[in-house]
């Protein structure tokens, strides 16, 4: 929690991560709104993809920026010099990323509801969002840490991140499409189950990989 507290303080001072994710995501939604004719039929099919693509790419931007702030003046190295366990460091970063992304989504979703005239079952959507954002935070934090010391970090981060997050993104889009269109909950429970499985796998693999990445 100390790591997350530090990240929240840094974000309050710099306002870089949330703003970057929010502006990018909002712009994406506006562009898609213009590109697609938002009839009731197309909205249910297109809006879920728009939401999660906007959040995924916004997340790449935000996480890259968050780790750039870590590297500036060597604060990241200073943290690694302490006895803190590497997975504790990792989960601290995941918590802060999750909170930032959730904050952005709290603004984004009402905008989408207004733009696309959506009717969302709130409780189920919160569950799907939480699982999806957890996946994005876990995988994004790992690959942002990997890319941090490379010259081509802005290119490397999406190249690494997107192929790995695609299964979770697909599951999120399917869940959201079911919620937006009001289809049966049997399909929804299958996709939520799949998303939960991906999260479980990421929860085990990513902290282990992070420990390997941050040791020289």
């Amino acid at each position, binding site marked *: 929690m*100390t790591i997350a*507290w*530090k990240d929240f*303080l*840094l974000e309050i*001072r*710099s306002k870089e991560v949330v703003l970057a994710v929010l502006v990018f995501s909002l712009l994406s939604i506006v562009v898609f709104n213009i590109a697609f004719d938002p009839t009731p039929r197309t909205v249910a099919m297109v809006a879920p993809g728009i939401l999660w693509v906007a959040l995924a790419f916004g997340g790449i931007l935000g996480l890259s920026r968050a780790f750039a*702030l870590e590297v*500036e*003046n*060597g*604060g990241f*190295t*200073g*943290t*690694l*010099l*302490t*006895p*803190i*366990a590497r997975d504790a460091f990792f989960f601290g970063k995941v918590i802060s990323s999750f909170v930032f992304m959730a904050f952005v989504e709290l603004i984004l979703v009402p905008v989408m509801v207004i733009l696309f005239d959506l009717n969302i079952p709130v409780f189920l959507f919160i569950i799907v969002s939480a699982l999806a954002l957890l996946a994005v935070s876990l995988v994004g934090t790992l690959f942002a840490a990997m890319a941090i010391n490379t010259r081509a970090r802005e290119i490397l981060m999406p190249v690494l991140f997107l192929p790995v997050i695609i299964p979770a993104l697909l599951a999120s889009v399917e869940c959201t499409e079911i919620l937006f269109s009001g289809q049966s909950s049997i399909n929804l429970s299958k996709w939520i189950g799949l998303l939960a499985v991906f999260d479980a796998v990421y929860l085990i693999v990513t902290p282990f990989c992070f420990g390997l990445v941050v*040791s*020289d």
Partner: protein
Amino acid sequence: MAGLLPLCPPRRCYISMKTKSQCLVKVSGLSKSYGRRRVLNQLEFEVECGSGFVIRGSNGSGKTTFLETLSTISRPDEGSIVVCGVSLKEDSAFVRSKIGLVAHSSYLYPQLTVKENLVFFSRLNQVPPQALDENILLSQMGLDTRLNQRVSTLSHGFQKRVSIVRSMLHCPKVLLLDEPETGLDEETLSVLKGLIKAFLSDGGSVILTTHLEKLDYGSKMENLFLKNGKLMPLS
């Protein structure tokens, strides 16, 4: 001078049951290369309680690499590092808890204030942040009036002072200083030399590097020269 570090308990030297020596740091066969260039070459080094070393060498001789390897920032290609009887490979967190490092970079978060940085690193080192209120090193380093100032607004010299305080928060047994005189004025350099003297008297060990031939850190510090990846007496 011992009052510089009032909150640190007296350092007990680790006494090896096998050798009966008071060895804080033992480096064996340490090697590190960058590409084809071997910077540290089968380096052997022992540091006992209360001993200090000034490692001198030309630019690119491997002084910073040596300290980075000791402090666990950089992993050696070969060799072992044992601190207070515990090998780095066995328990790197323990080793990190016994070492304080002051490097070229301040290792601070520039957007946070001095106090916020020190509170953050105190918590990570499992030191109660309330201990900062009694830390007289802050006033010795002239930081007591700058606690609420953002690190980014401090000069390089003051950032170095904060870095020195940061490195001492957890009462380390071994202090590593990489060219600490850089950016420090005469007054602060004098305080730093006093700090080193108190640290050694208290049973700790100091390893510092410098490229300045004429800079003297006192009679308690032994001078070594790093050349061709090995340490040798300065003479």
